């Protein structure tokens, strides 16, 4: 029969349309909110999602996975007297690995010894050129540069981020990437323990 296929198509759209309402009603009967809640958004991005699918940004936001990556930032530890202990040693690996070459670092020398100061004097990222690839964070041997979760960074001007803008506390890093932070902390502790054990062994060796 001519038109049967059309009716079949319409049935699919009708079912989809209807799904939205049955879904809403079932959430309502269960006393749950389908919109503007984390649970609702999570359900809408799961395999069971039915009916309307849209996440109403900015009222609602998709749940960002931990690995989600945007413009990098520099991590610092908060020292006892509120001093920022920057983890970066200005070794330059991030600047070397950066595909669009949007990182540049000023490393300065100690005026007394003439040797390089580990902490960078200046650190810039050209956020307009950065391609969010994540290589800098991946290859940094000191876990000093990490990828951010903040994506709402559109602006009218040129975005060149300096140290002031880039530095964020390690507590912030922990809050956006708890799993990674945990793994790195454990690795660091294990390394320190191994170092201490080695030092101890070295100290006790001549005695024996």
């Amino acid at each position, binding site marked *: 029969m001519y038109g049967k296929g059309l009716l079949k*198509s319409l049935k699919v759209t009708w079912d989809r349309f209807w799904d939205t309402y049955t879904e809403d009603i079932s959430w309502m009967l269960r006393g749950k909110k389908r919109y503007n809640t984390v649970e609702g958004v999570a359900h809408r991005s799961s395999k069971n999602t039915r009916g309307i699918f849209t996440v109403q940004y900015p009222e609602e936001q998709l749940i960002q996975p931990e690995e989600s990556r945007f413009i990098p930032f520099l991590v610092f530890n908060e020292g006892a007297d509120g001093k920022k202990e920057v983890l970066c040693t200005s070794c330059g690996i991030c600047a070397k690995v950066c595909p669009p*070459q949007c990182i540049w670092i000023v490393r300065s020398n100690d005026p007394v010894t003439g040797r390089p100061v580990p902490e960078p004097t200046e650190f810039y990222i050209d956020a307009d050129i950065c391609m969010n*690839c994540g290589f800098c964070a991946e290859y940094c041997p000191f876990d000093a540069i990490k990828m951010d979760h903040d994506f709402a960074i559109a602006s009218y001007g040129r975005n060149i981020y300096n140290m002031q803008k880039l530095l964020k506390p390690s507590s912030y890093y922990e809050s956006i990437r708890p799993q990674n932070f945990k793994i790195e902390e454990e690795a660091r502790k294990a390394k320190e323990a191994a170092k201490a054990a080695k030092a101890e062994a070295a100290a006790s060796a001549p005695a024996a």
Partner: protein
Amino acid sequence: MATALQTSTVDLAARFPNKAAADTRPGFTGFIVNKENLIEVATAVRDEFGYDLLTAVTAVDYIAENKMEVVYHAYKTTGGPGLTFKVQAERVDPIEVPSLINIWAGADFQEREAWDLYGIKFTGHPDLRRILMWEGYEGHPLRKDWKEPFFEEEVKPFKSRWPEGKHTFAEQKNPYRDNLNFPKDFDPENFVVEKEEDLYASLERHTTKDIEGNMKTDHIVVNMGPHHPSTHGVLRVAVTLDGETIIGLKPVMGYLHRNHDKIGERNTYLQNIPYTDRLDYFNSMSNNFGYVTTVEKLMKIPVAERAEYIRVIMAELSRVQNHLIFIGMLMNDLGTMYTPSLYAFEERELILDIFEAVSGARMMCNYYRFGGVVRDIPDDVLQKIKDLVLERIPAKTDEMERFLNENEILVARLKGIHVLNAEDAIKFSVTGPVLRASGVPYDIRRADPYSIYDRFDFDVAVRHNGDMMDNYLIRFDEIRQSLRILEQAIKQMPQGPINSQKPAYQVRVPAGEAYGRIESPKGELGFYLVSNGKPNPYRYHVRPASFVNLTAVETMCKGAKIADFVALLAMLDIVMGELDR
């Protein structure tokens, strides 16, 4: 089976003594053919040895040896490894090499590209115009002695970035504060595109006809694009029309050209991975796959077992979402705005959620590394992949088929509208679903298996009518086959490390050349790399499926109605990021 196929027995040097010789440079393969005998040898390669599919034509500038080399990669549509042959010419203008367009019509655009970027004149090519650069352009940008406007250094990493941190912005150097430079005395007000006439001259010319004595008709030339909603980006097509029938057609491209190859030669090997994401931006996972496979070939390193499975899972998920998008956007092109395409986007979003969870980005994944992948799949994400692959996507694919396949309007628009027959498809080096829909069961995953595709049980989707309906339906077949592969890969995936190498930002690549190719969702995605042992590739060439498939567009559309052109173009599934590079 795979091992039997992989032994090439063709010896061009023995067949053509004094005309061809084996390439003996360390790390190189194939044969160097004399320029004078190229046509003869190439004809034999096609007719005697049966290499009917010329997939890649590219050039390399060996400036130190004062030579230009043109490299050809030919394959058999029945499967097996390829045959590489090369022609060398003195690097003195005019550099002339005979055109192979009469043997393999698929050489057309690729020879034009080599002319454009390297300045190699292919004698006998009927329409040797610039293809990617603009008409008024001077010079050939891929030559090693050519420098871009704000040239900093030969290769990355640039020394200015560290430790002095001295850096001037490119835009500061330009009076217009824009990343451009113009030839001397360039006046945009009075610039006339002189070569524009050549474009129209390459179209079939027309004569005014009298119909029944008094009504005069004329053929008209219509420019579709570059800003046309149905050309999938900035593609322009000059069409000659007789009424509503297309009688001649030429695509004009390069509006999105950024000289990906040159950028790639400045980059280190690792730095190229995120750049390949930006080729076919729907399938960054596939692009990564193709590139790392090629570099691994050069480096001769193994891939971690678990990583192989992860790679296949990601590449196949990418294929699924690409085909869903194809179906959705085809409906858009046919005029059913939004409903089917948004249904397709829904499933795609769920797949992109997976990509984001494993790689950190939805589209620009940058997930593959030499020897493996960057990080393991977390357990919850693996569960999500299982849920999608085993439950949701099969059901939704069925729903999509119920929704569209019998719809009378759709069937009327697609059925019986001819796309390509098998001979033409092979002749024009068309690969991917378009080739398979015209009845050629050629799928690189089977024909020349890479990675671990020889371990999976799946069928090569093939359809035989070569009309639009078949081109459309084959996408559903491929989704189903991909789901089969995914199912097996998830089941078989072992535990273990995800990279066979230690993480290194500077990899050591021995001198030599490699051509790696994968079956991307759009067709054959090839990478040709030449290494001279330095940290940056000496030659980096991408053979994108979209670009080469477009060679056939004129043949496809001749005789069709202009209203069908949009749908025919959609069938090729072109992406401008890959086409223009």
